[in-house]
């Protein structure tokens, strides 16, 4: 069998050749393939260009953010510092946590209210010589001023407008006092005194008391005491001297002290 196989001219039996057409087809297909790699060469270049552009753009965005963010951060940090300072001064604690479900205006107003109330807080007694003494009780100052006008203890104001004459004007002053007192956050000592003056003011509004009613002097006395107690710079009442002159209370006190010293 081996000899038979060796004697067979196998290739002669397969009378076939690889045609010229077949060779041309191969060359055509190769040329097509050669074009594709060129495209493949351009694709990485295009992709790398795109990546570099993207990175540059990202860099520019990041740098611009870097320029903007410190200002925002500083503003924010200053704000928070000032809040913290006021916190540390009056010893209060509050939260500015924002509820995302709330209306933005509502949130802002809430923050303002919270901030304002904190500034107006009447807290425990701090020695007046202490620089940390609360200087912010503007509402207490204004409530005292209003009551001083009503009781004839604010001359200059009275000279221009005069004390309230009608019930409506009195009511406006009383409502103003009430509004200022409601702005105050009070706690610990003097809480009862503030509650008392608020109660008296409400009572005066209900009674529609005339200006000569002693309830106004009572309101003024309490506010005067609280203002002097809590504020570093309280409202100074005007008073009429024995000679008929209207002077600030401090001058009268000074004159009284002078007379006392002469004696």
């Amino acid at each position, binding site marked *: 069998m081996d000899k038979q196989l060796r004697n067979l001219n196998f290739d002669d039996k397969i009378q076939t*050749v690889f045609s010229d057409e077949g060779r041309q087809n191969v060359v055509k297909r190769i040329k097509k393939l050669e074009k594709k790699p060129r495209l493949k060469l351009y694709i990485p270049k295009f992709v790398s260009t795109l990546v570099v552009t993207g990175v540059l753009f990202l860099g520019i965005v990041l740098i611009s953010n870097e320029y903007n963010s410190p200002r925002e951060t500083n503003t924010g940090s200053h704000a928070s510092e000032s809040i913290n300072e006021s916190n540390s001064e009056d010893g209060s604690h509050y939260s500015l946590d924002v509820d995302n479900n709330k209306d933005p205006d509502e949130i802002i107003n809430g923050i303002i209210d919270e901030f304002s109330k904190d500034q107006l807080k009447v807290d425990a007694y701090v020695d007046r010589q202490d620089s940390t003494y609360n200087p912010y009780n503007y509402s207490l100052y204004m409530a005292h001023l209003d009551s001083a006008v009503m009781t004839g203890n604010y001359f200059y104001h009275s000279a221009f407008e005069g004390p309230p004459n009608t019930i409506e004007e009195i009511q406006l002053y009383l409502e103003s006092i009430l509004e200022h007192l409601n702005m105050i956050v009070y706690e610990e000592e003097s809480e009862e005194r503030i509650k008392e003056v608020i109660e008296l003011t409400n009572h005066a509004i209900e009674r529609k008391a005339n200006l000569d009613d002693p309830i106004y002097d009572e309101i003024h006395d309490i506010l005067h005491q609280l203002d002097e107690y809590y504020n570093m710079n309280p409202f100074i009442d005007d008073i009429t001297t024995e000679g008929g002159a209207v002077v600030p209370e401090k001058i009268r006190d000074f004159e009284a002290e002078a007379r006392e010293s002469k004696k």
Partner: protein
Amino acid sequence: MGAIEEKSQQSLDYLHHKPSESIVEIMNIYGDEIKRLVFSYVNNEVDAEDVTQEVFVTVYQKLHTYQGDSSLKSWIYSIAINKSKDYLRSWHSRNQKLLNKIKNSGNLLVVSKETPEKETIKQDESDNLFEKIMDLPIKYREVIVLYYYKELSLKEISNILGQRLPTIQTRLFRARKKLKDLLLDEKEGYTWINN
């Protein structure tokens, strides 16, 4: 035969740097030979032409991977054999085989109407042997073709086909025995239509 067949660094550089020119030369050298090899597998002129084109396109695409570990001829042979087997596994090839089987159904074993003497007169003995080789199953046919007609050593065949050397030796032994049986059957008046 040019420098392209030499296993030198110069020829490798030429193959790697000028693949388009190289493939034209390769086709000139091995074109007919590869087509005959492919034909020995697919046993069809048209399919052999298509598969041969595929072979040379693949050679061009993979030319940069050729490192000269084997002869260029062996390397191209292995591509041609793999492509031919891929074709035989393809749906098209299977469909063709099935159609041929349907056409010849019922004639699996037929008694020759002609006497062996007449048959011998009609057909040359070598033609008969060729037909019997082409009727062998692929795994036997390929070792016969590669060993006897492509002048490859058993070791080379083992490398090209990715089979162990003893396996190739066994296959060659069995292929020869099967051929002998087929030829004897024919002398006795029986013809196996399908392999």
